[in-house]
């Protein structure tokens, strides 16, 4: 690995951390830099697993993952996330768009459900 490559990757991580701090202030408020960096890298590795290997593609996935619950892989209502990321029929742009659609629809559904006055607590 060249020094140049390492320096660029370091810059990327730095910028990505700044992005996460500005986009997710609540989630990152109590987080020290070491934890934030490691969580960021874990999310980047998920993105790489599905072929999102450029800085921008990777960060679009990181941004999405940070909007999902941490245990999304074990929750059936978020099954679509892995299915879309792993799809062999879609290119990355289509995948991101589909992920955004699915997240928007599911979040709206969850919010509507939570606000449903007919829903009684047991």
């Amino acid at each position, binding site marked *: *690995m060249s020094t140049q*490559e*390492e*320096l*660029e*990757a*370091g*810059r*990327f*991580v*730095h*910028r*990505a*951390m700044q*992005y996460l701090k500005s*986009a997710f202030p609540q989630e990152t408020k109590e987080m*020290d*830099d*070491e934890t*934030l*960096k*490691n969580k960021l*890298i874990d999310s*980047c*590795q998920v993105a*790489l697993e599905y072929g999102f*290997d*450029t*800085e*921008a593609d*990777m*960060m*679009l996935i990181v*941004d*999405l993952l940070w*909007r999902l619950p941490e245990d999304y892989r074990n929750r*059936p209502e978020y*099954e*679509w996330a892995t*299915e*879309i990321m792993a*799809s062999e*029929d*879609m290119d990355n742009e*289509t995948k*991101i*768009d*589909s992920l*955004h*659609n*699915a*997240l*928007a*629809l*599911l*979040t*709206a*559904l969850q*919010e*509507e459900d939570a606000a449903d006055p007919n829903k009684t607590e047991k």
Partner: protein
Amino acid sequence: MKRDADMGAVTGHAFFGITDKNGKETVYGFHAATALPENANLTFKEKLPMLIGNKVQGVVLDDSKDAYDDKMIYSISQQQYDKIKAFAEKQKENPPNYGIFSSNCVIFAYAALRQADLKLPPQPLFHNPASAVLGIRAYEKAHKIKHKLGNAAAEVLARFSPTRKISRGILEELKKKPAKQAVGVKSLVTSLAGKATAALKARTSSFNGR
């Protein structure tokens, strides 16, 4: 094919057609198998859990008789035609499961047209069958959420390179290093500034000493 009035009217549908050099059009649309004639007697409420919950078998049908409200037309080459046709026929023969969020008619149409590298607009949320399942109020909410996600994506695209790649190996290396070292430029500048100050001090004291 008979479709439920409530289902057909509100869900919306996306399909595409390709026209060969002789002017013959072949139309493909992706459906859940719940839309097949043998399921015609199922009520919408019976179909809903099948669509949202566990995935059901998908099916690619000839939608040439379907009416539509809007359309986009692309002029394509023979090579692009062949790519789209090959994809659509393959899916028709061995259709994937249908999932309302991850494998629906819009995603199928987009995946097919992307085979030919066509530049398509963002997937329209309002054509997504899932939006109808939610109802109009939730749909409006979903639209706002999608808009926010679009803004976040625009910010990411403005800040990060669409071409520079990051390898797994480098990320693993960076994970081993403390955050300060991993952040790159800032730590490098601080370190260089420190070294420069020290060097300047040393030179000054050496000069003063003369």
